[in-house]
């Protein structure tokens, strides 16, 4: 029983992390039909902004040396600026291209950023000691919850709630939902395309910054590919949830997190190494039965 609760806690923590990444991807997809591979590199660069660029494996801290509030603020600023820069320089000139072209251009942007990080920081994984104090486990009612997991759940739930509030209550959030529903119609109603798209990118940047900080606190390492797997899983989360649906993206994120933790816990030990393969197979199996995902969005359909 305790074991089961433990697994549940793990699943919620991982699921909420993926939900965050999936929401960021879903938001940008909603306003411009772009599946953004570069989200992975936003996360990576956010984490690498903590340290001074050197080839060393345990580099001195840069933003990571600042007091907590400034560190978080600094990382968020860096990633948001990066997200806005990619939007302005790479994606805005391609706006209106078909989704396949956009997809491939984001693949190129991602490759560019990844190699840029490798050039500046060298390709080796690095260790960074931030938030060590959080790794101590806290006991709640007989269940040991690592501090990092509590932090993850806390941060992600605050961000998810803030996100819902933003989308439902603020003018910009409502415009964004309108744009996701029908971009042309929203523009005719006076929604400014540039502003709403830039806002979506900025928010995806804030989320990427949060995810990168959480990942660093959890693992204590920096790697040029650290953003890759969360974003790949988040892609599938958005597909499972139904492309273009924001609640679907969050739901898909939780489902993927739950499936991963469940497989990790219940697979026989010699099959555990193949866990991710099983996850992807389940995704494909699921799509066989519901090709359009759980929540079918009107906007996801081919526009005639």
């Amino acid at each position, binding site marked *: 029983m305790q074991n089961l609760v433990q697994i549940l806690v793990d699943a919620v923590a991982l699921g909420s992390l993926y939900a965050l990444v999936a929401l960021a991807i879903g938001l940008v997809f909603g306003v411009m039909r772009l*599946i953004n591979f570069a989200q992975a590199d936003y996360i990576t660069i956010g984490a690498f902004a903590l340290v001074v660029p050197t080839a060393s494996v345990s580099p001195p801290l840069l933003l990571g040396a600042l007091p907590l509030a400034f560190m978080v603020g600094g990382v968020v600023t860096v990633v948001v600026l990066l997200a806005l820069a990619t939007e302005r320089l*790479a994606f805005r*000139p*391609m706006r209106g*291209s*078909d*989704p*396949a*072209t956009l*997809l*491939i*251009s984001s*693949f*190129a*942007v991602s*490759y*560019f950023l990844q*190699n*840029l990080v*490798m*050039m500046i920081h060298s390709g080796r994984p690095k260790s960074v000691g931030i938030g060590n104090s959080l790794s101590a486990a806290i006991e709640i009612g007989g269940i040991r919850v690592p501090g990092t997991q509590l932090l993850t759940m806390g941060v992600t739930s605050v961000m998810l709630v803030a996100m819902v509030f933003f989308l439902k209550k603020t003018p910009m959030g409502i415009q964004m939902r309108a744009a996701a529903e029908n971009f042309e119609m929203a523009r005719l109603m006076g929604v400014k395309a540039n502003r709403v798209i830039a806002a979506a990118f900025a928010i995806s940047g804030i989320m990427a910054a949060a995810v990168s900080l959480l990942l660093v606190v959890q693992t204590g390492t920096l790697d040029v590919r650290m953003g890759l797997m969360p974003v*790949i899983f988040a*892609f*599938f989360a958005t*597909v499972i949830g139904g*492309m273009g649906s924001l609640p679907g993206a969050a739901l898909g994120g939780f489902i993927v997190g739950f499936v991963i933790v469940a497989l990790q816990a219940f697979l026989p030990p010699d099959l555990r*190494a*193949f*866990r*991710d*393969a099983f996850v*992807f*197979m389940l*995704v*494909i199996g699921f*799509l*066989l039965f519901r*090709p*359009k*995902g759980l929540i079918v969005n009107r906007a996801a359909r*081919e526009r*005639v």
Partner: protein
Amino acid sequence: MKTAELPRWQAFVQRHFAVLFIAACLVVFVAVVELFASVLVQRVVTEALIRIVIVVGIYVFTGNSGIISFGSVTFMAVAAYATGWQTCCAMLKPITMSGLPSILRDHTYPVYVSAATSVGLAALLAFITGLILMRLSGLAASISTLAILFILNVTYSNWETVTMGTASMVGLPTYITPWLALAAALLAVLCAWIFQNSARGLLLRASRADEVAAAACGVSLYWSRLIAFTLSGAIMGLAGVLSAHFLGTVSINSYFLNLTFLALAMLVVGGMKSLSGAVVGVIVVSTIIDVFRRIEVGIPVGDVTFSLPPGTQELVLAGVMIIILMFRKDGLMGGQEFRLPVRFLRQHRRSLEAKDT
């Protein structure tokens, strides 16, 4: 009699000019390289020819259907490992890959038999995955091809007793010469050309232009896409066999995202809507890569050596790709095939008319 024959010949050339032109250029190029260039350059050219097979393989599906496939490299890896199991290192195999079935572990097969079976396996796997993936609509299918790539990578990276995990399988016979690579490239180009001009291929290209309209006209997307995906898988398999026997080693991580990116970059630069574009893309990008690789190593200019930091090549490649997507979305070839120059045709026709009258 003579005048009746000539137009037919002329019509044939006119119709299939793209593939004839590509073949002629490649043959001449390889002949020149074979006669005059160093062994090193010959290797670079062989590598480029193998890349033509790769990119044409992706083009057969992606170019005709309009669905970007991130997973085609999977079928390359499958075929590369399959041919490795059949031809590699008879003495070491039972020790390093003890989990292989005895038919593979204790026997070694002739290279052409293994090439054929490996390509067959790749095609079969593409067909089976295609059965599932082709049910999905464009973007979801694209993303799902990525799932195939990850499934194979995770599986082969961890299947220690059969694939040696992430370690390289070494000691494959290296029998790929520039001429053999050329033959494979021409075969791939020919297959792609025949497919895209077949009824199925034309239907698929119609669906690429407008999915809804094509479906409304009764075009079954599913079967057309599935056939293209299978053919693409077979050509990727051929590319896998070539690369395995060119390098003499197989390792799973050389068939992952970097190769996928490189192949897609070539396809985008040349233009993914035409076969000529696919081939041009390979040649242009291979040239860029080779030039920047040399600059990264260092080029002596007078007394100083001019060099760029390592990684420049990748940045330039990504930059070129983005710029092409921005300013010339259909690539260098603009989605067109090579055509016989109109001037030549007009002149020819005039001389024929003169003869008739």
